[in-house]
């Protein structure tokens, strides 16, 4: 009996020891695992790939203001930082009203005639600020910069850009005409956007100030872009000179355009082949000219 009891006690002790050993091992494992777990938790913060950058909202399509210009006048559309846009303008030199319809048709509605062609490249210098260069084939070069002072939003009823430009004839070696102005825009829900653009153009009269009454022009650009279908717009603009040098007639232009991806295709008519601000300040004619613009945004 006593032996049996000893054997049982020994078995119990062995079981207890095994249990103790097992418990110790589990504790050790748990204790040892704790730092490793903590390390694993810390690792994602150190090695995880950086969160993707938030997309610049300026890259989003503004359906009511899809382009940087109406026909020739600028808009308040912001160009994303470090992005580019390109524009080509054509104004055919043959007046549409010259001759009868047969003459016009034989000239393929003025497409056979020479044209004033302009090439423009603009660049987003920083958020809200863009600059560019525009050259027309009458050898005028225009530099411009725009800064978005106020962006239209729920709390701000208007968009506002500060605008400065200077053009020079003969590849920017002769007569220079600087311009300063503001571009004010107002978007109307689902309909389109409307613009008022007071702009002062210095040396719009290319004669010395000693022999002319007015050397500068102050014009008030007025324009609208109306969305008639999801990607189709009707655009119009005019630029009456309210003070200063005002030869010719008041400039006007109108057109229809289609947005296709990053492109905007526009066909237009105007009473001037001029497309820079100083050319617009010099007014239009009594003739009407056919033209087109194509814009390409390089981020869409």
């Amino acid at each position: 009996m006593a032996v049996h009891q000893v054997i049982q006690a020994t078995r119990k002790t062995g079981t207890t020891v095994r249990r103790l050993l097992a418990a110790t091992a589990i504790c050790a494992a748990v204790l040892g695992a704790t730092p490793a777990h903590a390390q694993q938790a810390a690792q994602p913060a150190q090695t995880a790939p950086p969160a993707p950058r938030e997309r610049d909202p300026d890259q989003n399509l503004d359906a009511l203001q899809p382009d940087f210009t109406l026909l020739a006048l600028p808009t308040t559309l912001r160009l994303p930082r470090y992005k580019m846009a390109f524009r080509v303008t054509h104004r055919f030199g043959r007046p549409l009203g010259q001759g009868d319809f047969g003459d016009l048709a034989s000239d393929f509605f003025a497409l056979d005639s020479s044209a004033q062609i302009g090439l423009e490249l603009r660049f987003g210098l920083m958020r809200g600020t863009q600059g560019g260069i525009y050259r027309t084939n009458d050898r005028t070069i225009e530099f411009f910069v725009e800064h978005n002072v106020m962006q239209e939003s729920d709390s701000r009823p208007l968009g506002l850009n500060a605008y400065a430009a200077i053009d020079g004839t003969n590849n920017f070696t002769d007569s220079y005409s600087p311009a300063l102005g503001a571009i004010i825009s107002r978007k109307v829900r689902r309909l389109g956007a409307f613009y008022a653009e007071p702009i002062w153009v210095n040396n719009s009269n290319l004669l010395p100030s000693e022999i002319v009454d007015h050397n500068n022009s102050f014009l008030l650009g007025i324009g609208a872009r109306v969305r008639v279908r999801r990607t189709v717009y009707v655009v119009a603009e005019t630029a009456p000179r309210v003070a200063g040098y005002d030869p010719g007639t008041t400039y006007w232009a109108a057109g229809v355009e289609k947005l296709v991806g990053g492109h905007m295709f526009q066909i237009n008519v105007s009473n001037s082949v001029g497309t820079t601000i100083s050319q617009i300040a010099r007014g239009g004619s009594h003739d009407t000219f056919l033209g087109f613009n194509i814009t390409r945004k390089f981020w869409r």
Partner: protein
Amino acid sequence: MPQFLPCRLLLLVCVVAFASFIAACDEKLSDLAGPSPNLQPTFASIQHEIFETTDASGRAACTNCHTDAGGRTPSGGLNLRHDIAYTSLVSVASRGKTGAVRVIPGDVNDSYIVQKLEGQPGIVGERMPRTGGPYLTEGQMSIIKRWIATGANND
């Protein structure tokens, strides 16, 4: 706030650059005047640069003929001698064409001197200078016209 600083600095730089550039943008009168680069729209300047001087293009001075110097008879009865030129021109009837007035202050188109210098239809006699050219350039004429348009003052 600091994020707006570059924008404002850029704007300031642009405004300053523009202001300085604008001051230099006006066309130079000397470029327009061409062969008589010192010509101004004043009577004293026109008297000296046009009436009394043969310019760089070879256009003959008016006083080669229109003078009483040396006892000569001024051509067409128009004496452009320095001290009496103004009173010979402004609001004085032409001897060559009845009813014409040599210079009508403020009226460029009807001033007979402009018609004669440009050789317009309806003039009596030859275009001036009668040497057959060179004639006054368009720029020189613009300056003379400006003097008439602003009142043909004896300035």
